[in-house]
């Protein structure tokens, strides 16, 4: 739904898809509690990202207005961080570690395996909307290499068979993402 007044002003990215009142109130309360609104920037981005599924242009605007920042300032952060998604992602975001230890244990072939299995390229969303695979800086599970995070939950050491198991389980159980509160 396009907001007509905004459209008339040329602000065609502002639409009526606003975050729900309850969530807005909750965020406003959280920001008010902080000593400085800006220190909540990443927290607010995570929460709004969870609501939209990713940090859309509208979401960047919303976050900016909540924090009293400009959309550009918010986007500067959003594009800087690995775990803020500026494009649509699957319900489960798979962060496959490509740190040097995981690389040593065959991360590259696992990445190919995952992409082939899900029928995606790196960063794409699978056709069922469930999965996105992203290469990620060392996730700190070198003692379980090769490892990955799925919505914040670590898995390792991985083999193609274990990956099959994990994907099958995710398809059935669909646990709540844990990265956002």
């Amino acid at each position, binding site marked *: 739904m396009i907001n007509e007044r905004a459209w008339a002003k040329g602000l065609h990215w502002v639409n009526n898809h606003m975050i729900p009142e309850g969530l807005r109130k909750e965020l406003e309360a959280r920001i008010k509690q902080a000593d400085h609104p*800006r220190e909540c920037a*990443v*927290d607010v981005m995570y929460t709004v990202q969870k609501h939209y599924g990713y940090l859309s242009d509208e979401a960047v605007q919303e976050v900016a207005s909540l924090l009293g920042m400009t959309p550009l300032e918010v986007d500067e952060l959003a594009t800087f*961080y*690995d*775990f803020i998604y500026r494009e649509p992602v699957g319900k489960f975001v798979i962060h496959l570690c490509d740190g*040097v230890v995981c*690389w*040593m244990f065959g991360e590259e072939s696992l990445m190919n395996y995952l992409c082939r299995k899900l029928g995606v390229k790196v960063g794409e969303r699978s056709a069922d909307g469930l999965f996105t695979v992203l290469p990620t800086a060392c996730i700190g*599970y070198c003692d379980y290499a090769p490892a990955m995070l799925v919505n914040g939950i670590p898995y390792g050491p991985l083999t193609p068979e274990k990956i099959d198991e994990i994907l099958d389980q995710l398809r059935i159980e669909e646990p709540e993402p844990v990265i956002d509160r």
Partner: protein
Amino acid sequence: MKAMSEKVLFQNYHPDRPATFEEYCRSGGYVALSEVVKNRSPKELRQSVAESGLRGRGGAGYPAGRKWNAIREQSPFPRYILPNLDEMEPGTFKDRVLVNTDPHMVIEGTILAGFAVSAQKAVFFIRPSYELEAKLIEKELEVARKAGFLGKNILGSDFSFEIVVHRSGGRYICGEASAQVNAVEGKRAHPDKTAHMAENGLWEKPTIVNNVETLACVPHILRRGGAWFKSLARTKAGAGAKLYCVSGKVKRPGCYELPMGTPLSEIIEEQAGGLLPGSDFKAFLPGGASTALMPGKFFHIQMDFDSFTEVGHRLGTGAIVVFDHKTCLVAASLNLIEYFARESCGFCTPCREGLPFIKDILWRIENGEGKETFIPMLRDMANYMSHAYCAFAPGAASPLEGLLKYFEEEIREHISQRKCPFKEG
């Protein structure tokens, strides 16, 4: 040689769960805090830590006492502690294991650091990969608060202190103190060399950024004395116990607490169970991805700060990554440089432009397109990294410097054979 070293940081280690608040208290936890807030001055506390010889465990090894003493009596308020749980150095996972072993040890250390510099608030900086740890800390902070160790007038004293958790969006450079300050302030996390942490850190106020392993040592130092802490080390110059990570081609990768200065060979063979079957030791990174690739001739080096300085290298985080004879070190260096090129914040030219350049050269060598002239070119580029704005780029060049210094022959084989000698066909 000590037969069985005393466990300090891992005194309450359980393989499957964190120690509870009660377990931590039974092992002497919060005794130091209770004593300190009643009977000791911040200055005494700083002195104890300075005497213990405790050096920062985040990689740089800066003396903790000196860092704390940089905040002057007349410095403004409020003051902040940033317990650093960003741990994005590839190969390093000790802080994750530590927090999961004894969260209250880190919490007590943080409160004591706060007391030492008369700070009012701590902000735990936690990377997104450690969301489980962030939740654990939030839960245990509540427990500490209920017990009267956090909040207003701690244990009836006039010392009040708060700790909150800050979740990062995930970027390596956030581990750098001034970049971390920017990150908490909701700015893009570029390092800021004009900021002097002890004067104008977080919100322009005096700030101490300490690695969580460093903080976890503090309660023990205060309870048992600086001399005791210093004597834990295996080397004269070293101090304390250290959490060493071992990963790569070893039988039992993991995090092991040992006396500072334990020889590398002992850590690999006795703790990590030696190399995997069919693997021979070839090279190692002593402390994460921003330290040098070092060869077998250093197999018996003592793992402390000074032993590495003496041979022109750095201990870093003490996170040992082991490479075997079947692993191509040109490809490994390419992986490491790719990591740094991607993680560079892009603020200064040597780092932003230089790292992708090095990456390109290494890629060509690895893929059979190398030339003899590339070797001096790599050497020059590695040296140029010292012109970067912060320590990120020189750190990034460290593995490459090791490769050039100790494994030039392996680079030459790639060039002369016009392929990677480790690949089939």
